[in-house]
């Protein structure tokens, strides 16, 4: 509710400034101009949005699958923890604007390099919280399982895997925010469609309002995806949101 008020105040101030200061529309389009662009260019925006949204969704899904597999593998193997974990940290320091054109050279202008880049940046934020959650299972609980004669696999299946789910969700939610940035960067590195491509094209054509509309659409998508994940988390993992120890 208060977030809505802040948005209203910012948009109102922006609109007033854009109209009263006489600033050039190509430099700063008024919110009303962006709204007009959203409506007028809806077909163009929609096709490009579908492309980018697809890249983001598939990229995150790939990162989730790989990240989960990698976290479990590292969790089970001290050797992998020593050997692979530092490499993961290294992978996160690779500057995307440099890698993106390289991937375009390798994979062409299609969807593949975009999905690869989204998956690459989302991978690390998924692995780390998942691995943390797996490792943070109560030592006494492991001991209890051992006293019941549970195998390593049973302890994983019954205790560790459910305990890691909140970590996986945290990773997925972090991913949503950075996946949009990664997708746009990847598109700007070389592509024929997508909202990132549209922004690159719109600016030299003095279609600043259209570029803003594209950004708005992308942000709205990220927020919606984040909200969807939050709802899913509350549905699937109700114990993580319930107040604890209220009953006496």
């Amino acid at each position: 509710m208060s977030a809505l008020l802040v948005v209203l105040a910012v948009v109102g101030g922006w609109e007033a400034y854009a109209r009263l200061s006489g600033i050039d529309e190509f430099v700063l389009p008024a919110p009303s101009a962006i709204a007009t662009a959203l409506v007028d260019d809806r077909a163009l925006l929609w096709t490009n949005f579908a492309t980018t949204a697809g890249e983001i969704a598939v990229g995150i899904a790939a990162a989730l699958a790989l990240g989960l597999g990698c976290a479990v593998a590292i969790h089970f193997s001290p050797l992998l923890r020593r050997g692979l974990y530092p490499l993961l940290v290294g992978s996160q320091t690779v500057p995307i604007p440099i890698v993106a054109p390289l991937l375009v050279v390798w994979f062409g202008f299609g969807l593949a390099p975009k999905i690869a880049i989204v998956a690459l940046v989302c991978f690390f934020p998924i692995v780390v919280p998942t691995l943390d959650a797996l490792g943070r299972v109560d030592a006494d609980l492991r001991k209890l399982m051992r006293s019941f004669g549970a195998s390593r696999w049973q302890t994983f299946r019954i205790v560790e895997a459910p305990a890691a789910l909140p970590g996986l969700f945290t990773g997925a939610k972090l991913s949503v925010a950075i996946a949009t940035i990664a997708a746009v960067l990847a598109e700007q590195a070389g592509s024929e469609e997508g909202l990132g491509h549209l922004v690159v094209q719109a600016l030299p054509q003095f279609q600043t309002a259209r570029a803003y509309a594209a950004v708005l659409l992308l942000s709205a998508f990220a927020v919606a995806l984040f909200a969807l994940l939050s709802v899913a988390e509350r549905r699937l993992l109700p114990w993580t949101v319930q107040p604890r120890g209220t009953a006496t």
Partner: protein
Amino acid sequence: MQTRMTAPAQAPPAERAPGGAVTLRDVVKTFAAQRRGAAPVTALDGLSLDVQPQEIVAVVGPSGCGKTTLLELVCGLIAPDAGGVDAAPAALMAQRDLLLPWAGAADNAALALRVGGVPRDAARERAGALLRDFGLTGFERARPHELSGGMRQRVAFARTLLAGRPVLCLDEPFAALDALTRAEMQDWLAGTLAADPRTVVVVTHDVEEAVVLADRVVVLSPRPGRVVAELDVDVPRPRRRTDARLVALRARALEALGT
């Protein structure tokens, strides 16, 4: 009740082994230093303890005297450095309930059954029946956060019983509860064990809990733990905490503890 308290001494040897006897002979257990430069910690030094089948033994002692180590030895979770441990299969119940927050009460209680390969529905059925016996009717599907502290301990105890081991190792089972609930749970536990007798080693630093529950109270010295006194609690059940004999035993135990 009385027969159970006196029976162990007269039980024929043949009955003892499968019935769940526990023997510790001159057990030594030392842990490596936690921090660099610190001395290794000797938790137990020459501890001997005999528990007869279906006897309830309470072990009391000051903090850090190796009580938890004693239970982990009995449960086979750790091995002694010297001496011998000979115990029938034992199930451990920790001070904290350690319930899985995502699982319902019946699924939590059925944990050992699931580990043992019992199918989910059958395990849930058996656990649910026991929980109903424990006064938790209607809470079979409730998650831990929906249960009170006493209820959670009952689920944890059901989980321990369903492990199907002849020996129960209870590590300060009610320490996390408020005094009133604790007293209630002690009476409840005494009743439950009367209905389903097991060999019980219960560790506590609550002397009253010890004399209310146990057939025999073993007092340990400060670390390294050694037995400094053994008190037979020859008081028929159900016991009243205000019973003069219990009050006297409590005083003797406290004296042995040096407080």
